[in-house]
C-alpha cells in the first residue's frame, strides 16, 4: 500500500514539476507548482515526517504561492515575461545549471551515496512526538543555523519596510502637504505614525 502511494505521489510530483517549467502561461505554471508542493507534502507524510509535511503545505502552498498568484494576477501576466536578458543567454545559463545538477547527481551515485534514512534516527524512534523532536533539535543541535536564519529573515523584513517607507520620505519633510507624490504611488491617506 505504502509503495503504491509513494509511486503515485512521486509520479504526480515529477509530472507537475515538469509542467511548471514547460507550460507557457505563468498562472498555470504557478498552479502546477502548488500541486508539486502538495504531492511533496504527501511524500513527507509517507516518511512519517508529519510536521514537515504539513508545514510544507501551510507555508509554501498556502502562503508563498498565494502571494505569487496575487502578483501574477495583479500584473496580468499573460505570457513569458521579457526580462531583458536575451533568449540565447537564458537558454545557455539553463543548460549550464542543468549540467551542473546532473554532474552532482552522477558524482553522488558513483560514490555509492544512496539516499540515507529519511529522518535522523532520533526522530524516527519517537514518531509519536514528531513535532516535539523537531523542536528539540532546532533549539539544541541546530540552534546556531536557526538563529542565523531568523536574523536573515529579520533583515529582509526591515529591508522591505525601508523600501516601502522610502517613497514617503521623498515627500517634503514636515509632511504638511506632499505637493507632488511620484506618479503611480497611490498611497492611502493618513497614518503617518
Amino acid at each position: 500500500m505504502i509503495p503504491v502511494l509513494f509511486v503515485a505521489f512521486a509520479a504526480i510530483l515529477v509530472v507537475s514539476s515538469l509542467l511548471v517549467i514547460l507550460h507557457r502561461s505563468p498562472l498555470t505554471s504557478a498552479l502546477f507548482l502548488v500541486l508539486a508542493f502538495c504531492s511533496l507534502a504527501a511524500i513527507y507524510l509517507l516518511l512519517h515526517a508529519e510536521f514537515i509535511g504539513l508545514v510544507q503545505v501551510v507555508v509554501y502552498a498556502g502562503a508563498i504561492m498565494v502571494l505569487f498568484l496575487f502578483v501574477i494576477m495583479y500584473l496580468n501576466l499573460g505570457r513569458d515575461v521579457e526580462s531583458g536578458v536575451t533568449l540565447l543567454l537564458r537558454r545557455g545559463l539553463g543548460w549550464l545549471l542543468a549540467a551542473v545538477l546532473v554532474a552532482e547527481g552522477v558524482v553522488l551515485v558513483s560514490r555509492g551515496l544512496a539516499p540515507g534514512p529519511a529522518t535522523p534516527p532520533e526522530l524516527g524512534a519517537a514518531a509519536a512526538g514528531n513535532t516535539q523532536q523537531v523542536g528539540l533539535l532546532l533549539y539544541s543541535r541546530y540552534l546556531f543555523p536557526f538563529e542565523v536564519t531568523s536574523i536573515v529573515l529579520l533583515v529582509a523584513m526591515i529591508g522591505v519596510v525601508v523600501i516601502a517607507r522610502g517613497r514617503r520620505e521623498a515627500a517634503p519633510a514636515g509632511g504638511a502637504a506632499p505637493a507632488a507624490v511620484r506618479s503611480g504611488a497611490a498611497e492611502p491617506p493618513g497614518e503617518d505614525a
Partner: protein
Amino acid sequence: MAALLRDPTVLVAFWALVKIVGILLVMLGIVAYLTYFERKVAGHIQARTGPNRVGPWGLFQPFADILKLFFKEEFIPDGANKVIFHVAPVLAVAPALTSFAVVPIGPDFFVTDVNVGLLVFLAMSSLGVYALTLAGWSSNNKYALLGGLRSAAQMVSYELALGLSTIGVILLAGSLSLTEIVEAQRGSFQYGPLALPRWFVFTQPVAFVVFLISAFAETNRAPFDLPEGESELVGGFHTEYSSMKWAMFFLGEYMNVLTISAITVTLFLGGWNGPWLPDSLKFLWFLGKVLLLVFLFMWVRWTFPRLRYDQLMSFGWKVLLPIALLNVLATGGVVYWVGSR
C-alpha cells in the same frame, strides 16, 4: 491482488473510507439544513417569518432549492479560463471536508487521530484561499477579479492571527493532536461550591476572541464578506457562476462555517466534554456546542455592517496580529514559570 488484500494497511484504509462516507453524508445533510436555518434566523432578526411554504414550517425548502439549482442554465463566460473555472468550485468544498477528518466528534468517534491534527486544519484552511482567488481570476470579469484579489489578501492576512491564536492552546495542552487537546479540557476548576469547566476559553480568553474574529474573516462571512460585497462588486468572485457550480461555492461557505465552528469547539469549548451523558452519547454535547456557534455566525452576519477594505487590513495587521503575538509571549511566560516551580 490477493497480496494487496491481505495487507493490513488496506483494511485500515477500507474502514476509514466507510467512516469518511458516513460522516460526509451526515455533514451534507446538516449543511443543507444550515441554509434553511440561516434564512429562518435572518427572517426572525428582520421580523419576518422566513421560508414557510414548502412542507411543514418550510422544512423541505433545501430540497426545493437544490432542485431549482439543478435545472438552472449553466453559463460560462467568453474568454474564461475553462479548466480553472471548473476546478475552482471543487476547491471551495474539498478543504473544509478534509479538515473534518481530524475533528474528534466524541470519545473514540473520529475518522483519524493524527499527532498533528491542528496543523491539518491550518493547512486546509490555507488552501481554501485558492478557490475564491482562482474563481475570480478565471471568470474574465473585473468585478470577479477584484473579489478574488480581495479574498487572497484578506485570507492570507487573517490566517496569521488564526494560527498564532492557537499557539496558546497548544502550549497549555502540550500537543497538536485534537484528541489530546480535548482530553486536556476534561474536568473542572473548583471554587468552593462553584465549578468552572476546564475549557481553554476560560484560560485563553484573548486567544478565543482573536480566533473567533479570524474565523469570521477566514469564512468570508459578514462583517468580512468583502470578496463578494454585492453593493460594490455585483457578486464578487462568483459573479459569473450559475447553477450547480454556484451551489458548490454556497455549499463550501456553509461547510467552512461548520468546520471552523467544530474546530473552535474542539480548541476552546471543551469538545465533547460535558456532564451527565454517558461516553457513547457525549457527541451530542459536541453537536450542541457546534450548532450554537453556527447560530452565532448567523447572528453576527445579520446584525453587523461590512468593514471597509483598508479598515479590514489595518485591523488584521495592526490590532489582531500584535494581540495574538502578545498572547503567545504571555502564555509562554506563564507556562515556563509554572513549569519551573
